[in-house]
């Protein structure tokens, strides 16, 4: 072979080395290129979303990051799949003022794509009622809100129509309250909860079936994964918090809480259909869960529990007078804190991610500045990746905390009397 001669072998070696270096450089280029491609794809896909949803359609208004974020975390009567494609959902409305039976409006949300229907109109994905239901609107030009966002107005052909949102259970504290109609629709959040329920049923029914089918055998596949989680909840939450005597009774409740919240949290992290609904970041959902927890705790509270709330034994009477109101407040504050904690954690996570994505449009000056958009894209994607990981952890932690605290409240409610009673008996 010719290149085996010493004269030729040196250049050959250097060529080989060069080739090797080039290979490394190529690999580096490839990874950098793919990263850039990722940013570009992210940029274009998000920019589409922004044009479709940010601010008002075709109104020429500047990009409003706050409105976009609020719109994305809000519940909706239809599901935005992508572009202009929306998945219609059943709308169930009830206006008690219309008299019993006739106050119901049940239809598909697609009915609202062309103006108002039956005195109701779709405003930013939510069904609202026209102050004057007899009116019909063909086309919405824009929407404005009054100072405290309590009232919305739609503009159509230079005429202003006042809108009313559905009734809410915040008692007017946050600008909601009871209005002229109730919205019992299968909204985006309800749809996601149903989907989560379906997933839970699928997973746990098959797991339960595996236990029946493989009785007396070692767990396998999905069964062993679910068993680990089940045992984790049982041995780290239910058993230590509720106590050896009662935990078995409440294990299904704690499991349901943990997995329902966990699956809803995780589905909220999926940035596209069928995820992306901010289920556990909606106060309505966490309030319902907290109320159920409150009822379960109160129903299962034994004599010892109520005694400790209403007339704490073993302390002077004048302290009891101070302590009883505090304890009664505590009864409500506990579920209230559950409600706020879950809601705030999940909503905060969603808002942060939406704000980071919004950087693309803020830096890009609403599509005017490509360089700025690219910079925003780089920063936004980087931080969003980081935040998504954090949110993944938060999903588990919040589900775990909700389950653990609920278990501890139940534990306090079913705990048998001990020390105090003996001490008091001796005292008298």
């Amino acid at each position, binding site marked *: 072979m010719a290149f085996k001669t010493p004269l030729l072998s040196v250049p050959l070696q250097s060529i080989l080395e060069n080739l090797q270096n080039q290979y490394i450089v190529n690999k580096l280029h490839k990874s950098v290129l793919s990263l850039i491609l990722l940013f570009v794809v992210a940029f274009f896909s998000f920019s589409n979303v922004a044009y479709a949803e940010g601010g008002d359609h075709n109104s020429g208004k500047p990009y409003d990051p*706050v409105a976009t*974020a609020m719109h994305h975390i809000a519940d909706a009567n239809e599901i935005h799949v992508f572009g202009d494609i929306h998945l219609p959902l059943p709308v169930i409305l009830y206006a008690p003022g219309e008299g019993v039976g006739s106050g119901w409006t049940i239809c598909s949300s697609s009915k609202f794509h062309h103006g108002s229907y039956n005195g109701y109109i779709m405003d930013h994905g939510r069904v609202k009622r026209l102050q004057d239901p007899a009116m019909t609107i063909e086309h919405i030009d824009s929407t*404005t809100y*009054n100072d405290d*966002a309590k009232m919305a107005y739609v503009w159509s052909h230079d005429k202003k129509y006042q809108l009313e949102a559905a009734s*809410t259970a915040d008692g007017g504290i946050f600008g909601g309250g009871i209005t002229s109609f109730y919205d019992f629709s299968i909204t985006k959040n309800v749809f996601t909860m149903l989907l989560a329920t379906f997933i839970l049923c699928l997973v746990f029914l098959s797991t339960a079936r595996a*236990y029946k089918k493989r009785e007396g055998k070692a767990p396998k596949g999905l069964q062993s994964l679910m068993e680990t989680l089940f045992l984790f909840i049982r041995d780290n939450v239910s058993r230590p918090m509720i106590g050896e005597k009662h935990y078995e009774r409440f294990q*299904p409740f704690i499991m*349901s809480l943990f997995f329902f919240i966990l699956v809803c949290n995780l589905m909220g992290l999926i940035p596209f259909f069928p995820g992306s609904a901010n289920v556990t970041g*909606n106060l309505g959902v966490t309030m319902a869960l907290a109320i159920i927890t409150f009822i379960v705790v109160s129903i299962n509270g034994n004599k010892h529990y109520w005694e400790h709330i209403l007339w704490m034994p073993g302390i002077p009477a004048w302290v009891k007078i101070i302590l009883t109101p505090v304890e009664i407040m505590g009864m409500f504050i506990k579920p209230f804190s559950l409600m706020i904690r879950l809601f705030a954690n999940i909503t905060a996570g969603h808002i942060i991610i939406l704000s980071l994505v919004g950087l693309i449009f803020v830096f890009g000056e609403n599509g005017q500045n490509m360089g700025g958009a690219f910079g925003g894209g780089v920063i936004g994607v980087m931080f969003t990746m980081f935040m998504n990981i954090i949110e993944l952890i938060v999903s588990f932690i919040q589900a775990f905390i909700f389950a653990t605290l609920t278990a501890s409240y139940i534990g306090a409610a079913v705990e048998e009397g001990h020390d105090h009673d003996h001490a008091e008996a001796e005292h008298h």
Partner: protein
Amino acid sequence: MDFLFLADFSVVKPGIGLLFWTSIIFLFVWFFLGRMAFGPIQKALKDRENTIQDSLDEAKQAREEMSKLKAENESILAQAREERAAILKEAKDAKDSMINEAKVKAKEEAQKIVASAKVEIENQKNAAMMEVKNKAGMMALGIAEKIIKKQLIGDGEQEKFANSLVDEIKLN
């Protein structure tokens, strides 16, 4: 100002419908999955734990029994070993005593044989002496007879004859 208040922070306003549906869905998850999945899973896990505990207990019991048996076996073995040693010792003693006895007996026998042999020898000797005496007597008689017969012939002749007879008698 419109711009600022475009944001409707609606998630803090819990919708009545959402409250209703969340309660329904969660209660369904609780009661349905609790009955169909969580309950049976819990029961299966408990059964398995009990089975494992029982098996462990059983194994422990079996091990204890085994060790008890082993101890018993060992004691039996030790006893057997002791017995064997005792038997061996006995056998050895018996052997020794038998050997001693035999030795004594043999000695006695030998002594007896020797004694009887001595007696026999004595007897034989006596018998032989008797015979010699008898023979010598007979010979002396014969000689005497012959001398007596010769005396009748002459003195010289008689003496010669007597000497020849004496020569003839060789006490072999």
